[in-house]
């Protein structure tokens, strides 16, 4: 691949630009509040784990992480489960209204969350799911199911048709073919799709905040609340922020070659 002059410097400068704000957050999370407010220090002079300790011992904090993880996991499972057969259908068959349906799915992926906040509030209150992880999980399906369909469709299309035909000739029933042959073949695709469902559900705040009040409050909502109530506990806020970055940072290595694909809905 051909590159441009001065590329090392450009790359290094850009990476520093990306890392500096994150470093500042990590830096703050290890400081005491007195150090944050009174002095300007580039690294923590009196490093403390107090902020993290408080998050892990105070139930109103760590329950936020549990709530978030609960609805994110439910959402990922639902999205992948319903998207898999649909991805196969879109990739292999032509049927009445297939293109319209595909477009309709995409349009839901792109719909502004703000539009749905209020109707979702009414809908999930009406069916008694308000303030449960299920409400948020189902609400996030609106953008994650289309995303999963689009990503998986690309991976299914990479599996040669002959494999289906051979399997059917060998007497595999459709469900058995699906579970025994197709799913193992596109395992990496399922992993990528699951990662992106996880990610987009994890980063979303507006719907998650609107659909919960007490019992299922996600960590992101707890963060905003505590900032306004506790008179700016910066160290604690920073520590909570760092902990929300970790799940993404942990798995990013495994999907690094698929990131562009996932963000472009499997079309790269």
């Amino acid at each position, binding site marked *: *691949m*051909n*590159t*441009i002059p*001065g590329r*090392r410097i450009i*790359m290094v400068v*850009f*990476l520093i630009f*990306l*890392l*500096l*704000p*994150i470093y*500042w*957050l990590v830096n703050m999370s290890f400081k005491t509040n007195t150090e944050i407010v009174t002095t300007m220090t580039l690294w923590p002079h009196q490093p403390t784990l107090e902020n993290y300790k408080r998050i892990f011992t105070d139930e109103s904090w760590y329950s936020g992480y549990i709530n978030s993880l609960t609805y994110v996991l439910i959402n990922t499972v639902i999205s992948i*489960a319903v*998207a898999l057969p*649909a991805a196969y*259908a*879109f990739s292999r068959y032509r*049927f*009445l209204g*297939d293109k319209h349906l595909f*477009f*309709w799915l*995409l*349009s839901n992926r792109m*719909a*502004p*969350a*703000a*539009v*749905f906040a*209020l109707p*979702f509030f009414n809908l999930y209150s009406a069916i008694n799911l308000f303030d449960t992880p299920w409400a948020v999980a*189902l*609400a996030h399906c*609106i953008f994650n*199911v289309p995303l999963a369909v689009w990503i998986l469709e690309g991976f299914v*299309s990479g599996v040669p048709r002959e494999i289906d035909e051979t399997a059917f000739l060998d007497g595999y029933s459709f469900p058995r073919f699906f579970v025994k042959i197709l799913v193992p073949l596109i395992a990496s695709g399922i992993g990528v799709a699951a990662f992106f469902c996880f*990610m987009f559900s*994890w*980063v*979303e705040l*507006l719907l998650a905040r609107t659909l919960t009040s007490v019992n299922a409050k996600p960590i*992101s909502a707890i*963060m905003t609340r505590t900032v306004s109530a506790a008179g700016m506990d910066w160290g604690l806020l920073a520590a909570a922020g760092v902990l*929300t*970055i970790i799940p993404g*940072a942990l798995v*990013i*290595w495994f999907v*690094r*070659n698929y990131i*562009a694909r996932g*963000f*472009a809905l499997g*079309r*790269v």
Partner: protein
Amino acid sequence: MDKTINQKAWFLVLPVFLVVAFSAVLPLMTVVNYSMQDTFGNNQFFWNGVGWFKELLDPSTDLGGRFLASLGRNLLFSAIILAIEVPLGIVVALSMPRQGWTVAVCLVILALPLLIPWNVVGTIWQIFGRPDIGLLGYTLNSLGIDYNYVSNEFDAWATVIVMDVWHWTSLVALLCYAGLKSIPDAYYQAAQIDGASRWAVFKAIQLPKMNRVLLIAVLLRFMDSFMIYTEPFVVTGGGPGNSTTFVSIELVKIALGQFDLGKAAALSLVYNLIILIVCWIFYTVMTNAGAERPEKKGAA
């Protein structure tokens, strides 16, 4: 591309259809319903016809003024971030190392901002930009630049834009990098034999090959920036005044803040319609591009 016609495929699509219909069609029907009515509380509704829509598109009314102002701000915001992120993303993609372990490291660091929860992105920049405790704000102020994103409109805009550049330029870069990687080496060798300049290589080989991913990147960035909510909300709360109140923030204010259901619903529909039109362009681009490479799919 020789897909067989099979109407039974609908059974495979049915679960997706039901799930998405439940969470998209039902709520949207409520929105349409509300948009035609007025309420004075107590769950009493009155027929208002297209009144809200008229008001929405008339800048002299309160609702219309707020909507059009936030729409204008939002379009300006989208235009600015596209003008920065697209060229910067291309430059970064061209600067990617060729091979070795540095490629993986660069990819991981580039992707990092994309995976941070949006409210934490806001928090990061809120802390980073504060004049008293943030590295950026502190440095700027000690350099003699009076910078305060809470009280100064220009500073608030600058902060929100730099934040978005920080958050999403990587997406453009990663997409372009994926496009660049698909160019066979033979192209470059041919260019070398022809004695093509660096610029000529970019214009004649790399840019055309990146065309499609760039279009996807532009549309994705446009749509996401057009419905941006969380990040500016956390950093500036839409202020100072209304200077960083974008359409989504205005909508949430009306819908959940004032509980003005009719107005909010009318705004939602117009907002959704704009997104839908852009989305249709996006879809056409993607499916056309897909039709261009059937031989690749068949060979895979």
